């Protein structure tokens, strides 16, 4: 992450909202080429901001930046605030941002229980830990799934485990990277509703990257469409 200009944000420090995820003047360059015109957005508690745009426009780059895992070849400018704190330079493990990916990204070598335990705070010990995980599975509609192998779960089950794995880590914001695109059409609306309700219920700000206008519509929040700046499309 190089090339940050601290003065690039137009609003003053005391105007930064004290709650929610706020991004200002985000701009990315690969080999000197600007991906899309600078964007600014804000997701309040329980609000889902949808980012849309053609593939290759840089949606994944933007999410990587918010997560703190930008590839070395990309130059970024702009700043990210979470509940009023500047987290632009923080390493991913200290950002307290949850991520839901297309393939759910469950750790294949761990059981469902161990996956959920991965992000759960060490404050929970012994019986409390076991109960927190059991409760999460209950809410996910997957009671008794503790010992299951993630490889044997259906797409919808994986998505729900991934959601609660992220929530158990007590994040302050959630990023969703096309989390429903691999699900069957009929299952898709159902899981989407489930995930959006859980986010609204938790009062977390969320950013959704999607290809599907129906996703953005169901999210109910502001929709930002990214338009590429000239040049050929690139994957990713």
């Amino acid at each position, binding site marked *: 992450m190089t090339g940050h200009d601290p003065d690039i944000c137009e609003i003053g420090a005391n105007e930064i909202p004290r709650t929610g995820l706020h991004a200002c003047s985000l701009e990315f360059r690969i080999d000197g080429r600007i991906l899309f015109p600078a964007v600014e957005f804000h997701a309040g508690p329980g609000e889902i901001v949808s980012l849309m745009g053609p593939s290759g426009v840089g949606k994944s780059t933007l999410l*990587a930046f918010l*997560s*703190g*895992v930008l*590839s*070395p*070849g990309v130059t970024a400018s702009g700043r990210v605030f979470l509940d009023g704190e500047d987290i632009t330079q923080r*390493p*991913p*493990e200290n*950002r307290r*941002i*949850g*991520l839901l*990916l*297309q*393939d759910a*990204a*469950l*750790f*294949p*070598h*761990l*059981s469902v229980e161990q996956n959920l335990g*991965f*992000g759960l705070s060490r404050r929970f010990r012994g019986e409390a830990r076991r109960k927190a995980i059991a409760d999460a599975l209950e809410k996910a509609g997957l009671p008794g799934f503790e010992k299951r*192998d*993630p*490889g*044997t779960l259906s797409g919808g089950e994986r998505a729900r485990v991934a959601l609660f*794995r*992220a929530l158990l*880590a007590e*994040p302050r914001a959630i990023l969703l990277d096309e989390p429903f695109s691999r699900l069957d059409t009929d299952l898709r609306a159902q899981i989407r509703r489930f995930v959006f309700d859980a986010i609204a219920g938790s009062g977390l700000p969320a950013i959704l990257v999607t290809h599907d206008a129906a996703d953005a519509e169901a999210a109910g929040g502001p929709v930002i469409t990214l338009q590429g700046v000239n040049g050929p499309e690139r994957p990713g």
Partner: protein
Amino acid sequence: MAIAAAGVLAPAFGFLPTLGGTELSLDPFVRFFTAPGIFRAMGQSLYVGLSATFLAVILTHSTLAAFYTSRWFAPLAWQSRLILVAPHVAIALSIAFLFTPSGLMMRWLSPWATGWTSPPDYLFPQDPWGLALIAGLAVKEFPFLLGLAIAQLGPINPRPALHAAASMGYGPLRAFTLVVTPQLATRLRFPVYVALAYAISSVDQALVLGSSPAPILSVRLLQWFNDSDLGARFPLAAGALVLVALTALGFAIWWLGEKGFAAFIHYGAASGRRTGPVDGAMRTGAGLGVLTLTLTTTGLFGLGLNAFASHWRFPDDWPGGFSLDIFGGALSAIAPAAGTSAGLALASAVVSTLWVLAALEASHNHRRLAVTLHALMFVPLVIPDISLMFGLSGFWAALRLDGHWLTVLWAHLLFTIPYCWLIVAGPFRNFNEGLVISARLLGAGRWGAFFRVKIPGLAAPILAGFGIAALVSASLYLPTLLAGGGRITTLATESIALSQSGDRRLLGALALAMMVLPLIAVEGSALAPKWLLRNRSGLNGATA
């Protein structure tokens, strides 16, 4: 690497102060090229290397084309794995045992077919035409290429293309040859060059199977190395460079042949003919491939049988009696060498695996470092090992490092690290980055994500890399000999030293030990992840 280059270049141009060579000159080259029979040795190296590799490549492609869709494919793949884990030396010994005048083949054919009651008189192995050596090298390279080819069939996904060709009236063999073989050949390119470099400069097999009055260049170089007249170091250095050039020449010839062959196959595909002369050639090749695999496996078992034979007269088909004396005599004689081999194999595997993982993680996100490392890994695979080792041995001798166990380990690492890298690097780079990012966002630091998610997720390829490193270490002859200064004895050096002794029981025991160690390493590293991850379907199939 730089040390090796300097160690070859300086004496090659006459600079070796300890031996009085303080001026740069071309004299070493003059001495090299005026050595008797040197051009024959060079020609022999090139001819043996190219023939053996050509044979191995033809066998690989035709066996796959003929058997890929057949139920015989699995047993063939198993035989090929067995031969793959057998060190070159063991293969050489098994070929010698099969075809020598008093060998297994003659025993099985005599007296009913040949009428002989005493061994016939012909020179094999070590025949002047290099046929035994060509066979030995081809037999060892064939399973190597076959194994890699099978691994490459996954990404090629040949089934749809084969179905399409079949629907147009092409038989399975011709369809495979015209549609899949060219794709496979492109992907096998680099391994074929590795095999070619090895075949041109092999030492261990050449010592057992090659002709001794007319040795190939690498063996001539070894003779100079062992020469008590240290002045022989100068033509040796020149020769080490010539061998590198010879390998490059071999590459060039191969490259030209490759072009011609590709044009021929493409012509055949575009001509629309549903049958052609290639079919017959491929069928013959496939038959030969099966014969090769079966004979070699038989030879290996026969050789092992020797270890337990109390007496086995010519022309009996089987030993006249069995005994377990071997555990008293021969086994205790080879136990120290076996111990050294096992120790070196284990240490090489541990260090190689750790080094490869550290290097891969450090070069992750550093493109230039990654590219440099990747290129560097291939150098020991295409440079003749006698050239590389000679370059280093001068340096080791100057610092009095030769003959130490750690120096031998160093020499082994030069070869085990690249093979380990070849196995691990691909899966490591293709690892689902989403898992690492998720782990970090869930609060694991960089190292937490590495150890708790990436390493366990890559358990299968990492263990496979570990097994390959152990296997390669156990089979290294020349590096052990030169770095060990003759004072470190392993199973590989011991077998070569005893290969002409005629003590079949001892050789049988050595070959057995040489098979058992790598089998443990390779099978163990293949089974361990299956057991560790037995309840994890997302990883079980992901073995490299």
